[in-house]
């Protein structure tokens, strides 16, 4: 029999708050818009608008000593362990593995090094994208497999999917999965150059959407096989990871395959892996970035996969309030899905004024809605058409 994989704890640091609970409450109740955080003259980078994680000191000050991507990932992991009620004693004799997603790694420190050549960078660690996962494992004492995934904007979901697979394969009983992404000047510059940034806000599926808006985000999830949780007497779990479906458009570096055939394949593979049908899904967290064609293709494909059922779904596009946290976004979405399943509440999509008639999706935009949610589908897509869909279920 396949091992049941539980999410027994989450840690989340986002522009909406410095904890999973704080981020969740703000996602439910608070307005959220990106702000301009200019560090360069507009002549060099016209749009420096993003959703920032509020920190004790300015980001560039923190980065002088340590990358925020790593510091916040270590912190989020500590929060997730505490949320799971996992003390070091509970983990003695358990080999804990790590799967973490990031696109730019410690980009803040490396970019600071470009403007301050005297900045002492840690050779060789700073130069590997895996320093985030390595440091959080070193500090928390995890000696299991330690993998960094960089499938661009789907990396966070791939990290959760891979951690799930490893537990099912019997390679470990406890895995920390997550993602960490903070502001990158190069990422912002390239998206600006691609014409892919909305100058106002992230407005997924809105008729006036003009692109995405980056948001910093760090998430850590404790995935634990049910036997391990039972042995340590843990009753509470937020949700179950039930399965994932993977695919690749193989179409274009930045544009989605307009037919949606491969994201459809990913959704169907995820449903199949989880042993559920479209009728069993009650809520969808779409990739929903606010990018014109991406949102259109995703909405058309959801309509195709779910048929009439699509009208009954609660669809919440969380990037509207959180921004798009790139290589962490999928992990942030999975953490949010776990909280939706545990609490029986669906957060509204912010910043959407008029839903694009072509998208024809029942995007959930009103107040938080109590709902009995059995299974959530979480989509994540990326540059190169690197797609992954996850199914999470109620415990």
């Amino acid at each position, binding site marked *: 029999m396949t091992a049941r994989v539980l999410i027994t704890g989450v840690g989340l640091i986002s522009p909406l708050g410095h904890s999973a609970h704080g981020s969740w409450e703000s996602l439910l109740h608070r307005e959220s818009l990106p702000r301009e955080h200019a560090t360069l003259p507009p002549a*060099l980078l016209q749009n420096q608008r993003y959703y920032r994680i509020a920190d004790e000191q300015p980001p560039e000050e923190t980065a002088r000593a340590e990358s925020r991507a790593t510091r916040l990932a270590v912190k989020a992991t500590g929060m997730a362990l505490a949320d799971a009620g996992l003390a070091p004693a509970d983990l003695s004799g358990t080999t804990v593995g790590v799967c973490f997603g990031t696109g730019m790694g410690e980009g803040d420190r490396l*970019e600071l090094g470009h403007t301050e050549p005297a900045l002492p960078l840690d050779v060789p660690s700073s*130069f590997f994208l895996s320093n985030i996962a390595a440091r959080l494992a070193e500090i928390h004492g995890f000696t299991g*497999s330690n993998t*960094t*995934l960089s499938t661009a904007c789907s990396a966070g979901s791939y990290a959760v999917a*891979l951690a799930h697979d490893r537990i099912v394969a019997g390679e470990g009983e406890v895995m920390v999965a997550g993602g960490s992404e903070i502001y990158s000047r190069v990422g912002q510059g390239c998206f600006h150059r691609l014409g892919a940034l909305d100058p106002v806000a992230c407005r997924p599926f809105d008729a006036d959407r003009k692109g995405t808006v980056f948001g910093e985000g760090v998430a850590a999830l404790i995935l634990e096989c049910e036997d391990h949780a039972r042995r340590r007497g843990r009753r509470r779990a937020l949700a179950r990871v039930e399965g994932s479906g993977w695919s690749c458009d193989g179409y274009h570096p930045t544009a989605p395959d307009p037919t949606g055939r491969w994201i459809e394949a990913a959704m169907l593979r995820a449903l199949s892996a989880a042993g559920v049908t479209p009728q069993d899904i009650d809520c969808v967290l779409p990739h929903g970035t606010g990018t014109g064609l991406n949102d259109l293709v995703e909405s058309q494909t959801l309509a195709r996969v779910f048929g009439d059922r699509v009208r009954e779904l609660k669809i919440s596009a969380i990037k509207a309030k959180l921004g798009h946290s790139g290589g962490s976004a999928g992990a942030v979405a999975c953490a949010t899905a776990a909280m939706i399943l545990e609490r029986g509440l669906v957060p509204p999509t912010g910043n959407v004024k008029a839903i694009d008639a072509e998208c024809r999706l029942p995007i959930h935009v009103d107040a938080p809605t109590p709902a009995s949610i059995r299974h959530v589908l979480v989509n994540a897509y990326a540059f*190169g058409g690197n797609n992954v869909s996850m199914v999470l279920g109620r415990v």
Partner: protein
Amino acid sequence: MRERIALTGIGLVSPAASSLEGFARVRAAGAGVACGGTLPFPDFDPARYLGERGFKYLTPATQYGLAAARLALDDAGVGDHYQGGERGVVLGTNFAVWSVLADMDATILRNGADQIRPAEAANFSVNIPASQLSIRYGFHAFNVTITTARIAGLEALALGTECLRRGRARMVLAGAVEGRAPEALQGYFSAPIAEGAACLVVLELLSAARERGARVHGEVGPSLFRFWPAVLGGPSSPEADGGSDGALAALIGPEADPLHLFEAGHGCPRCERLTGIVAAAAASAGRECSTVSPMMQVVDLCRSGLDAGLVVAASPQGHAALGRWAGAAA
């Protein structure tokens, strides 16, 4: 019983050798071959592998990856035996976009983001080499990029293997690509690392490979991945660092089992310390050490025809990767 996985194609593009024959000559001369490059790589001619057009805006690492993929697919002779939805890609890389990011940031700081060419703007993302593979060769099952220090290529092979067993794909192109490494690391590794390289292999179910009459270079055995940073810090051992779960001993197997050890070397003191400790733990009969970078070790091992080999690699951060492979003779 777990499905047996075969390695049926090898594609290699590096400054020292860009063919299996060249690789054999380099190894026969006793020289190491490192993925990450030990020499400048001025002789690479993308048109030789990719045709005359369509690579102008691709980064060097992407070009190496596309070329190595072409060689691996040709070597495997798979043609269109598998459909796009059955073919997956897993690439490991550390420095595929390093120089790209540095150049782009310099452009932004000096002249502004508007001076980045739109055709090149996507290249900042480290998953673009793998993505271009899927686009060019029609791989639709999945596309994953792993960036763990030093062991990413071996992780890619292990993930590809697992995906075949799970039925996520029926054929996987897996391996490593590298671009130019950061200048700051030049002094750290005693061997100069100047340019890039790519080493990709084709993996498929052994039963399917035999059915289509493919030549089998080698067979994937069990692998083990651990994180032992404390080993780097002092007189420690994997056991002292929480590695006493028996997995290492199980992988190494009984002493009577002849096992040839292929270890990585890059002049990196931390990597070598960790590899050495793992190697000492693996000290068993018939041990032979050689120094090639992790992906190439696999090629070397398969070429050797040895019936049992252990590939060992370690990162300066504390990652340890061990994989058992069997050469074609097995």
